């Protein structure tokens, strides 16, 4: 009996053109990989346009072999709206961090959702400005230490975090909202299925979709790279439960 090795998982899709420079243990490259795998598997690479905001993930525009518009901080949903309206046959997605979508661009994503624009927004949420070195964002959870909340986010002085996916899910015009995490193998697989479902809704013309992906930022959390997943489970995931969110009935 001879044994023949059969490839069951590639290291990365061909749509990733080279190495990224993000930190050890970062969750964002995992999110990029499953996003591009979904575009490949749905056979929509040759009609996809990504609208990318500003954060560490912004450097992905150099290694992702998909058409991209790098836009102003927070404005990706509006840019995506313009693209999709004039090119309805394309598949349009945004890639934004929590600082981009929830701090700088909260109204953009809410209005785009309420308008029911047939685009897919992807939020990479690590609860911190990783790119600037670990500062508080609108999704930093209560108690989380950042460089601008050194003793942990205290609601009395820093206010409360915003669960943007829940806000979006409360709006009519939305076809799909889900929250996944890339902190475990199972979580990565489930998040990939969420992305696939979101794009299937866009392809069916159902209206706005949002997939929030909780990602590790051990550098910005000031924990060792290997502790990222556990920290995520105890902080972000406790505040932002995973799964598909139930939607408001459309009028």
């Amino acid at each position, binding site marked *: 009996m001879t044994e023949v090795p059969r490839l069951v998982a590639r290291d990365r899709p061909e749509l990733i053109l080279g190495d990224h420079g993000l930190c050890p243990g970062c969750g964002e490259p995992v999110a990029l990989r499953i996003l591009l795998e979904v575009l490949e598997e749905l056979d929509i690479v040759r009609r*996809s346009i990504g609208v990318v905001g500003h954060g560490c993930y912004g450097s992905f525009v150099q290694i992702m072999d998909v*058409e991209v518009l790098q836009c102003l901080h927070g*404005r990706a949903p509006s840019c995506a709206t313009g693209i999709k309206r004039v090119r309805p046959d394309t598949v349009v997605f945004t890639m934004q961090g929590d600082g981009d979508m929830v701090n700088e661009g909260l109204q953009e994503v809410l209005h785009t959702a309420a308008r029911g624009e047939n685009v897919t927004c992807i939020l990479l949420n690590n609860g911190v400005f990783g790119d600037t070195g670990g500062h508080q964002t609108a999704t930093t959870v209560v108690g989380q230490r950042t460089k601008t909340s050194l003793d942990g986010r205290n609601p009395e002085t820093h206010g409360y975090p915003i669960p943007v996916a829940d806000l979006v899910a409360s709006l009519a015009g939305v076809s799909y909202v889900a929250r996944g995490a890339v902190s475990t193998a199972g979580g990565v697989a489930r998040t990939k299925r969420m992305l696939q479902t979101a794009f299937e809704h866009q392809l069916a013309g159902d209206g706005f979709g949002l997939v929030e992906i909780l990602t590790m930022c051990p550098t910005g959390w000031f924990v060792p790279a290997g502790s990222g997943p556990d920290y995520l489970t105890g902080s972000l995931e406790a505040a932002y439960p995973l799964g598909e969110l139930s939607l408001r009935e459309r009028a």
Partner: protein
Amino acid sequence: MTSTAPARQLLDGCAAITESAIAAGCRFFAGYPMSPFTGLLENMSRRLPEVGGHCLNAESELEAVNMALGAAAAGARAATGSCGQGLALMQEAIAELALNELPLLVVNMARNQQDYFQATRGGGWGDYRTITLAPKDVPEAVEHTQLLFHLADRYRAPVILYGDPLIAQTHVSVDVAARDFDPLPPKDWALDGTSGGTGHSRQIWTWAMGKVSAPGPGPDRHWRAVAAKFDQIAHDEARSEAYRIDGAETVIVAFGSAALFAEHVVDELREDGHRIGLFRPVTLWPFPAADLAAATRDARRVLVFELNAGQMLDDVRQFAHDRDTVRFIGGVSIHASGLSYGPLLDVAPIRSRILEAVA
């Protein structure tokens, strides 16, 4: 469904600009209501769907200009607009358009002439300018609209049409038809999704880094190239009009509606024997520097009339033949509603300010 309006209509400036834009192929518009720009948004929202286009009543000026940026990135002839504070909100995106080399028409249907600086100086970040045309009346606004779409595509840059309440709300009999221009290069840079997976998929990014498999020039080379392009535009695209300038010892400098009134006053004063003429920058940027220097070479005095505290005055002082001859006779003058010009924009006060300066 008709794509062009019938000949000879009675249209206000907002409707006329809308028809001119549609004749030029504009198929996307986004805006946020603000008087007197609102009329343009209303006309676009009625007309664009009739020709297969899109008009969005955006939730803010930020959304409006970024929606239009997206549409422009996807290759559409697109436009947005606002005025005053709304235009200020759009400046970040106008800079982004310039540095991304994306064409877009921004109609600044201003309340007055206090937007001169923010139209001509490049109110956002980076080394860029915006081609800005200031029509003096509705028929010229119709012409400028199409010219600006052409220039925007030719130079791949955002451009501004500087209107005002008189242009927005005055009805005139106009014929709107598509004008012919030199052919433009294809928009092979526009995003349509088709280049994904080729190893050199299209990328629009102010840093122009390209892909690791097909590197771009990067920010240093890219921004120097953009700056050089604006130098070229400054050299090639300045437009102006000299009116009864021959033998004039007094040269009025005015733009937009103010120039229309100044023209009338020049006619009156010429009848009275004054040697007076009018120089009108048609492009506010590029400022027609060489034309102004030539027009003021023999002038004893250069009188700047604008409805603000002296903004274009900076440019006139910089480029007049002799800056010591330059005097300011304009001023801030706002209608009680805050939405339009005050009493200074009228024949009698302009005439008396000129006569005072000439005496």
